[in-house]
């Protein structure tokens, strides 16, 4: 139990590992201490008060976090309570403390480890409470009883409780799914730590992305209902940046206009005619990032996620009104066409080169000096130039250039996506092609267990969008080595991640709409079942009336659910007969055979009932019916003579009963 409590607390973010270690040490120490002096009770009470004061001060003066202080208090209190476990009540207090630790874990964690903890807790608590109950009963009745008698619980009982525990876990989940989610979410815990990500604010400095390229923290998970596209890697587009300064890039416009809502929750960005075969649907779960950018593969067209409002600009970036502090879940439909047409009068100068050094301009001219090159060819030439002459590294050196761009282009000649993209965009502008930078994520790893893309911080990427022949195209000069993930996730981690994802999807984020969809599916299932039962009955009727033969009837084709139901009911009934009341019935049968009960029932109809003070013979005499006397005689020989009736005797009794019934029917 103590371990369970500590495990629960481990899930709580506010508790440091040092406190956990301390609590674990105290708990271990308590098992080592064998002698428990009587006055320990008062010492424990005093210690509890002191601890409370200490953590109250901790809350007021230092942490200012009620949850954190309360959990720390609970943890130490539970660990110290282990020293003072004597009566059943002490154990109860300890279990309650562990229970509260688990509630604390529930309130501030979303880890799937919680499932394990709660399952073990159910098993342990069932046992602990049973023992508590019996100890309590014994303590209240016999003052000298301290220990439970040995062999109290037989193996069959143990098995039963294990089965009950499993059953309890099933009920727990059944209730979990049934309890109506009428939550108002007034006091939602919005305290999830947002991941710090660079590159998605109004401006970025060159080198910002480098810091996150080694971070393996998960940023988002993307489910693809149509599966992973085979021919092309997905680029999850975030922020576009258009103005170059000597140190980095800036976005001149971010939230320019609200996106109109087309239906209750659906925001549509592009014209519906653009939505065609090259569309891809994604269910995105975005971890809380310190940005208001909404990500989506290539060009977002439709967003469906219960947002109040969304903002956008000409370059197709999508933004939330505020930075979210919890996970954001939405469905997006994107156009993965490589080229997109945008309104021309955006007022942004994508050819601005004022901040570019003369060397850069010269280089751009030099690369594209051939005559009659189309924009497309120019872009290709620059890309080839960059790929051939520059190498990829995550830790570029600092060179002697005036700006980071000059450093990359003329001195160090190595860098990562950010440098490549900046250089590409600058050279494109130098060559007279309108270009901008886009920051976002590469598609990351495919989790085959969960069927989703796992995108980490290290998949952060930046690339270029250039307006070639009137269309915006995605261009990426980063060498292919920079386009693959750096770490391969192990199969086990993938499996655990998918488990966690499902846990969050179906348990942590289970909502009223999920309940409604479950209810609808149950309704359709029951409708199907009832239709099948009707069909089954109709088939049987047809067969009985001879309209259809067995082979013609659709008994097995259409009524299989009804048949399954019938079989299930039969099995349950058979089990009930065998194990349910069987014993009681057989006891009853021995005391009053069926024929005697039938006789009693028949006599009751004509108002003759055996009094509690009457023997069977007295009753038979009072009734004055010869048949009753015969039956009673047979009953007595069975009941008191412990004799089995012969066939002839049974037949006689049947006849007597028949006669009795008919005469009772007449008189009634």
């Amino acid at each position, binding site marked *: 139990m103590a371990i369970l409590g500590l495990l629960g607390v481990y899930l709580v973010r506010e508790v440091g590992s040092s406190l956990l270690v301390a609590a674990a040490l105290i708990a271990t120490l308590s098992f080592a201490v064998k002698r428990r002096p009587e006055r320990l009770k008062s010492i424990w009470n005093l210690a509890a008060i002191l601890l409370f004061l200490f953590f109250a001060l901790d809350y007021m003066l230092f942490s200012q976090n009620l949850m954190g202080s309360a959990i720390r208090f609970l943890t130490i209190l539970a660990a110290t309570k282990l020293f003072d476990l004597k009566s059943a009540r002490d154990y109860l207090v300890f279990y309650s403390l562990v229970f509260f630790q688990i509630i604390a*874990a529930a309130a501030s964690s979303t880890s799937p480890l*919680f499932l394990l903890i709660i399952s073990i807790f*159910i098993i342990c608590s069932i046992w602990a409470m049973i023992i508590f*109950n*019996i100890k309590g009963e014994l303590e209240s009745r016999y003052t000298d009883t301290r220990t439970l*008698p040995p062999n109290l619980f037989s193996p069959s009982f143990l098995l039963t409780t294990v089965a009950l525990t499993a059953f309890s876990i099933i009920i727990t989940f059944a209730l979990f799914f049934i309890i109506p989610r009428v939550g108002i979410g007034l006091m939602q815990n919005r305290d999830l730590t947002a991941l710090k990500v660079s590159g998605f604010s109004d401006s970025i400095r060159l080198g910002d992305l480098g810091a996150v390229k080694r971070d393996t923290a998960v940023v988002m998970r993307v489910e693809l209902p149509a599966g992973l596209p085979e021919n092309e890697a997905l680029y999850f587009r975030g922020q576009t940046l258009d103005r170059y300064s000597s140190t980095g890039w800036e976005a001149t416009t971010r939230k320019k206009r609200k996106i109109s809502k087309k239906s209750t929750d659906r925001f549509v960005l592009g014209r519906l005619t653009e939505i065609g075969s090259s569309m891809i649907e994604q269910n995105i779960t975005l971890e809380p990032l310190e940005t208001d950018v909404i990500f989506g593969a290539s060009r977002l067209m439709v967003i469906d996620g219960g947002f109040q409002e969304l903002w956008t600009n000409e370059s197709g970036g999508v933004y939330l009104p505020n930075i979210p502090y919890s996970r954001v879940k939405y469905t997006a439909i994107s156009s993965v066409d490589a080229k997109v047409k945008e309104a021309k009068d955006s007022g942004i100068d994508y050819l601005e080169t004022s901040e570019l050094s003369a060397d850069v301009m010269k280089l751009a001219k030099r690369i594209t000096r051939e005559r009659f090159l189309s924009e497309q060819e120019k872009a290709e030439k620059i890309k080839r130039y960059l790929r051939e002459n520059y190498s990829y590294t995550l830790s570029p050196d600092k060179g002697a250039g005036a700006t980071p761009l000059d450093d990359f282009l003329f001195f160090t000649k190595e860098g990562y996506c950010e440098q490549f993209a900046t250089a590409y965009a600058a050279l494109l502008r130098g060559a007279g092609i309108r270009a901008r930078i886009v920051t976002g994520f590469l598609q990351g790893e495919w989790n085959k267990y969960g069927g989703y893309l796992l995108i980490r911080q290290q998949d952060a990427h930046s690339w270029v969008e250039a307006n070639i022949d009137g269309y915006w195209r995605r261009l990426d000069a980063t060498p292919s080595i920079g386009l693959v993930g750096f770490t391969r996730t192990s199969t086990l981690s993938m499996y655990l991640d998918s488990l966690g994802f499902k846990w969050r999807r179906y348990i942590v984020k289970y909502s009223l709409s999920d309940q409604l969809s479950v209810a609808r599916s149950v309704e359709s299932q029951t409708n199907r079942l009832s239709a099948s039962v009707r069909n089954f009955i109709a088939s049987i009727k047809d067969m009985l009336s001879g309209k259809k033969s067995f082979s013609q009837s659709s008994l097995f084709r259409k009524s299989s659910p009804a048949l399954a139901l019938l079989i299930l009911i039969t099995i349950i009934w058979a089990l009930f007969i065998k194990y349910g009341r069987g014993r009681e019935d057989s006891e009853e049968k021995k005391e009053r055979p069926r024929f005697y009960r039938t006789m009693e029932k028949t006599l009751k109809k004509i108002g003759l009932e055996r009094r509690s003070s009457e023997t069977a013979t007295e009753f038979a005499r009072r009734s004055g019916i010869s048949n009753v006397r015969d039956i009673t005689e047979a009953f007595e020989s069975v009941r008191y003579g412990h004799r089995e009736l012969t066939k002839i005797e049974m037949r006689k009794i049947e006849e007597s009963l028949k006669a009795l019934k008919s005469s009772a029917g007449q008189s009634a």
Partner: protein
Amino acid sequence: MIIRPVINVPLPWLTILFARIYGARRGKPQEKRDVKYLFPRTLKVTKLGKWYIAILLLIGIAAINTENNLLYLIVGMLLSLIIISGIMSESTLRGLKVKRTLPGQIFAGREFLARIEIRNTKKVLPSFSFALRELSVPGLDSNDSYVLKLKNGEKVTRHNNLIFNKRAVVTLRGLMITTSFPFSLFIKGKREKADLTLTVYPRLCPAPIKELERLNSLNRIAHTKENTTAKGDGIDLHSLKKYVPGDDSRRIDWKSSARSRVLLTKEFEREEEIRVVIDFDNTTEDSTAGEEYFEHCVSLAAGLACHLIERGFYVGLKTREARFECKSGKSHLFSLLDALALIEPDKTCTTSRRPSVRVTER
């Protein structure tokens, strides 16, 4: 959006429930059932159970407020434990059969033991931690007995101490088997019907010493005066005679037979029939103190009857309504006690006299 009820199973159950309650309330007087025992089980929430429910509600409110699904999961867990508790307590109570045996004579104010035989008729499961108590009837105090474990198919015997506070004809309605197993959250009870009507005899109040001395002296005189040689069914030895077949074998005097090597039986002297009548004037006074005094008189009469019959007197009883012939023997004593158990103050009497008990000789 229209949400239709998916399952409409509860309706028939609700109808049955309504019919049962309505039937119990509106039934004919002789068929009227006790609403308290309308359902096969009784349920009481313990102090711990109240705490449990309070915590459950609190977490439920927290879950609604925070929309935290893990809190909903905990609510689900707590509710499932209640269901498990119900199933386990049911498995303990189910299949328990009880047989109760009471002593033949029961006197008010005198503690007696009820022997209870409990049998677990279940096929597989044992029953754990349950208590048995007589269903409460007015004037009955009883303790309960506890069984820690009763294996399937086994039986065990327990004794409950019972005491009736006043004389009456009482119908014991059965036994209540209760258990707080498995979690001490609820006390579930099962009523084992065992109707038994019994007569609680009055308390036995010792007669005033003067009166006893007077009666004892009567007895002594009778014995001394009556030193006859007549044979009879008394207690003093009259003579020994040779045994003949048909004589009561219990009267054989084995010592003398051994000495004389012939079977000898004892013959007893005939006793003088001292006939006394307990004259119980069962008038009443209209006050609580009067009621108490009346009860005292009943106890006194019962005490006298016992005392005298035990000493061989032929005792009769005279009340305002009834008269019992002077007889001796246990069965006569019980018929007198039966009458005293049921006696009521005669309210038709116009003169306001105190009730009284006198013993008169015949």
